[in-house]
């Protein structure tokens, strides 16, 4: 297991990614932008407050704002970081050499996945001290921050696996990238839209206890994030609109996304190298 995650591909990718000055600049600008948003948010809130105070509920709103910004960043950047890792090697003509080494396909795929999302993980972790400003004003517990961090890491790995999947299967990076963004768009905007439509149908009373909206929420990471930030929101929604399933949405999300992750990784590992067995005779 140790060899799987601490493999030569991962070591090399870390070296390449973190050696460049661009990585340092990217991280610096991201933290700067995040700081400006926080300072701006606090400034506006205190200006609008008659006493010039920043209250715990405002602190919670700020945390929610930051969480959604980070989520947007994850959904926007992850496909870009992962969809080119295998197809890019193929285009650069380095993949063939790599595939003739003794490294297992599993080790290569995991090395590529972890290294490609590592920069994003670094950005998220590096932003934690900035996030921690919310503790100064209250409204958010350390447990909630840890949960959100765990949720981010899990989401990054799942969407990263989708990128790796297309990158392995599709020869050209641009097509792999478009396909990955397409899936990301479906799982965010697409499921949100379908949720809205099916909920409207429920509310019109055409069907009762229709579970379909539940499945769309279950697949939507932004709505699940909202559920983590406002735990009561979905309970209320579920009871009012009769989604019909009494099972925690976060757990359903965890299970469905774990299945997606495993399928994507399994196919990527199987398809990385050709099946050398002769398929037909003559």
């Amino acid at each position: 297991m140790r060899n799987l995650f601490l493999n030569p591909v991962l070591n090399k990718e870390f070296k390449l990614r973190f050696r460049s000055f661009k990585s340092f600049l990217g991280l610096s600008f991201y933290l700067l932008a995040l700081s400006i948003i926080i300072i701006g948010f606090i400034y506006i809130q205190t200006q609008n407050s008659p006493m010039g105070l920043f209250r715990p509920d405002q602190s919670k709103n700020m945390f929610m704002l930051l969480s959604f910004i980070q989520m947007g960043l994850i959904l926007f950047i992850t496909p870009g970081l992962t969809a080119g890792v295998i197809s890019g090697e193929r285009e650069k003509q380095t993949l063939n050499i790599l595939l003739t080494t003794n490294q297992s396909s599993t080790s290569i795929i995991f090395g590529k996945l972890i290294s490609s999302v590592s920069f994003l993980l670094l950005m998220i972790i590096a932003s934690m001290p900035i996030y921690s400003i919310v503790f100064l004003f209250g409204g958010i517990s350390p447990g909630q921050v840890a949960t959100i961090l765990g949720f981010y890491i899990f989401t990054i790995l799942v969407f990263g696996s989708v990128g790796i999947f297309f990158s392995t299967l599709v020869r050209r990076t641009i097509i792999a990238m478009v396909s990955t963004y397409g899936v990301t768009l479906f799982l965010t905007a697409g499921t949100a839209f379908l949720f809205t439509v099916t909920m409207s149908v429920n509310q019109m009373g055409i069907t009762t206890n229709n579970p379909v909206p539940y499945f769309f929420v279950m697949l939507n990471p932004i709505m699940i994030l909202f559920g983590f930030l406002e735990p009561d929101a979905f309970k209320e929604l579920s009871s009012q609109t009769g989604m019909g399933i009494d099972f925690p949405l976060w757990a359903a999300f965890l299970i469905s996304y774990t299945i997606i992750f495993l399928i994507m990784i399994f196919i990527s590992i199987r398809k990385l190298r050709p099946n050398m067995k002769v398929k037909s005779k003559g």
Partner: protein
Amino acid sequence: MIEIIDLTKRYGKFTALDSLNLKIEKGSVFGFVGQNGAGKSTTFSILATLLSPSSGTAYINGYNISKEPKAVRSQIGYMPDFFGVYDQLKAVEYLDFYGASYGISQSERKKLIPQLLELVNLTHKQDSYVDVLSRGMKQRLCLARSLIHDPEVLILDEPASGLDPRARVEMREILKELKNMGKTILISSHILPELAEMCDVIGIIDQGKLVAEGSVAEIQKRLQGEKLIIAKLYRELDKAVNFFEDQPLVSQLVRRDDGESLQFMFNGTIEEQVQLLKAALSHDIPIVSFSEIETNLEDVFMEITKGVELS
């Protein structure tokens, strides 16, 4: 040892490789000659476990490429015809990465990498970034990379293509050294003379079929039978014409436009060629130079496309 049995690769209706059979003995150097699209790279890719065959199989040191691809990979050092390098990686790090990929320990890699860099004359470039090296240096580094796990078999797909003359000579010298080290080498090229010096056996592939196999001299003789020779003279051109016209192995004698040399076809062995030159000199024919025009692949294929089946 490499053994290829009825190896076939089809892409739809197109047959890239057609029932290839080949046996390359341990420690020998086999040159694979063929034009673009002849099937050289397809063969090499299948042997390197990068492409699955449509039918047939191959064994490398007794390991079946279809059933034991992992074992095959540990036996071969593969150098593709076109390859890229990673940006921002130094030559030492490049070799270290592939060494680690073959499961070589760090302490062993530290000893091995300087030796390999020395073998390919790149010690002075060990801390240079790979992407800024010249093409010749990249080719040599890639060759060093293919040797990092000390494979018994080397599969080198046009290692000298695109190199300038000096880099070609350097590459040839390294390959000679590898041959002396006892490696079994399968090497491809477009240019027959390029392989002639270092290969024990040559195979000519055309349209996915092996059309000729044997030593360079055998193949050239079978394909062409005759050599084109140019003799440059210091005066006495007429005397030289009379002399060469009388020689039974000489034909198609022509005076060249420069007015001081002759060209003719010679149908004989190398020993007979030496005898011819000795005889000319003993007849006081003032020969300044006496050279055989190298046969290139295009000439050989001109013969093949005439429909000569040789193997």
